[in-house]
């Protein structure tokens, strides 16, 4: 074979490898085209318009860093970031604790596990808009079952979504109902902890609490980290529920008194009510920066407590 190589005919251009490469790019073309058209293009364009003043009627006018300067001075930016942060700080730990607690209960049970799991997961299946409308009714100050139950104990319930001091906490309660996804991920994590660790600890005389703190929590820490990061990222983009509840009965976005003016609601208002496209694009980049920074910080912090054993 090697002896005759010199007089072999010239290789055809379409070698098997080249043909495979071509096929590959043809087959992934839909994604590649879509990626350029609907992701790369928009991202680049968004950066450009964040340096312009544009209401979509006239041509965009280049204003340099003006939008970003305005961002820093706009009191509603600070306010909406604070509302979003406050909500995140309270709701994320609460949600994770509830999800973990439910997962542990399910992990301990042997009978009717399917039924209980379904009951806890069900709220995660349904549309966020319906959840918001439903909770508005459950937390209705006068007729909602929540306040009626409080009244049984002689407590006058708050006016929830009508009271600027309580509206955000109503949303926190609502979000705690919907922890099924996190719960299932925790449950999968719990199932992954080798039983032999618990057996060894039991022989050494560790009680349930000790086993939980010394085995379950460290072994579950990568799962906790994953759920924490995903919840925080999601929480900073809260939109649906707050939109639906604050605009109920012709209310203003973020009402009452801007107490639920989440960052995404303010962004929506800037872009689609006031048509300040340049400003809203700058807002989106600020949010991106905030999310990246927080994710980075959680990641750094996690090195102290996430245990990647074995």
């Amino acid at each position, binding site marked *: 074979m090697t002896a005759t190589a010199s007089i072999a005919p010239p290789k055809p251009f379409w070698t098997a490898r080249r043909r495979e490469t071509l096929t590959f790019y043809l087959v992934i073309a839909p994604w590649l085209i879509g990626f350029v058209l609907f992701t790369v293009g928009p991202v680049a364009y968004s950066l450009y*318009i964040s340096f312009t003043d544009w209401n979509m009627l006239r041509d965009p006018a280049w204003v340099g860093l003006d939008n970003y300067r305005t961002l820093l001075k706009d009191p509603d930016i600070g306010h909406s970031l604070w509302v979003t942060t406050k909500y995140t700080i309270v709701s994320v730990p609460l949600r994770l604790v509830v999800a973990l607690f439910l997962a542990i*209960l399910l992990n301990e049970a042997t009978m009717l596990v399917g039924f209980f799991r*379904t009951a806890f997961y069900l709220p995660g299946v349904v549309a966020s808009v319906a959840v918001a*409308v439903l909770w508005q009714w459950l937390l209705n100050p006068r007729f909602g079952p929540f306040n009626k139950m409080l009244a049984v104990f002689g407590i006058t319930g708050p006016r929830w979504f009508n009271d600027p001091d309580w509206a955000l906490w109503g949303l926190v309660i609502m979000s705690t109902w919907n922890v099924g996804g996190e719960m299932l991920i925790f449950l999968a994590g719990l199932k992954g902890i080798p039983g032999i660790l618990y057996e060894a600890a039991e022989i050494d005389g560790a009680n349930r609490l000790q086993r939980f703190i010394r085995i379950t929590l460290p072994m579950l820490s990568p799962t906790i980290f994953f759920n924490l990061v995903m919840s925080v990222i999601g929480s900073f983009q809260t939109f649906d529920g707050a939109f639906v509840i604050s605009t*109920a009965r012709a209310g203003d976005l973020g009402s009452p008194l801007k107490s639920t003016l989440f960052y995404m609601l303010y962004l929506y208002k800037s872009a689609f009510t006031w048509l300040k496209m340049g400003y809203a694009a700058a807002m989106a980049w600020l949010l991106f920066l905030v999310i990246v920074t927080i994710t980075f910080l959680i990641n750094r912090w996690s090195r102290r407590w996430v245990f990647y054993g074995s």
Partner: protein
Amino acid sequence: MDVKSIQFQTNPVALFWREHQIGSLLYRLIIYGLLIGLSLLFLFPFFWMILSALKPEYQIYMWPPKWIPDPIQWSNFKDVFTHPYLPFATFVKNTMILEVGMITGRLLSCTLVAYGFARLNAPGKDILFGIVLATLMIPNAVLLIPRFILYSELGWINTFKPLIVPAWFGEAYAIFLMRQFFRTIPKELEESAVVDGANTLQIIFRIIVPLSLPVLTVIAILSFKDIWNDFMGPLLYLNEQSKLTVSVGLAYLNGQFDTQMNLLMAASVTLMMPTLILFFIAQRAFVQGITMTGLKG
């Protein structure tokens, strides 16, 4: 173990406790008590919603609550479906158009793309797959405004195109799931087809697709849920009342000054029911979808 502790265990109460495993019995009692209590608490809102949706208006304000609506007012649903300016029958039809258009596009495009990433070799493949996964991390907020501008320049606002067309260009999560699945299919099946002279498209649609029905079903079901529940997309791109989806329709109904609470609940039931029913039929697909997300991280 010293003598003292052995003596301690002969204490009749401790002995009885141990012999009948009272501790573990008590523990199980607490676990199941909590499970039953909490599951009822989690289910209560659904129960309350359905109850309110079937009551005449005056009865939903009564306390103690009327546990059985009298009469059961099915006409609430009829009123919602034929609402004069927010007709839910139209919204259901619109949402179904989106479902069909988007699920078809997503399944077709993702099958092709995932096959490429699962089976074919080409320079740049690994980098491109990394980019596919990276796009899952881009927050929606950054894309929101430029995409809106793009679609409005194209004249697509107030049509279904901004929602349906991108679905025909692949979706990162579905591509990832399918690629993982395709890699588990034995290569020999394709090789024999190549010997028989089959081209890539024939291999994909005659061999890969029939063997991948489980993963295609999972993606179709999860997509159905996401499209049905989506709020922000239709809210931005569809303005005319004849074009709204169920989700946005409910938000608008909720935004009206004078909407009756029982009608609002009937509309909420309308929005919730399809995904709930789908969940009960295909519970495994949902659970798989979630735990696969977990693995991805």
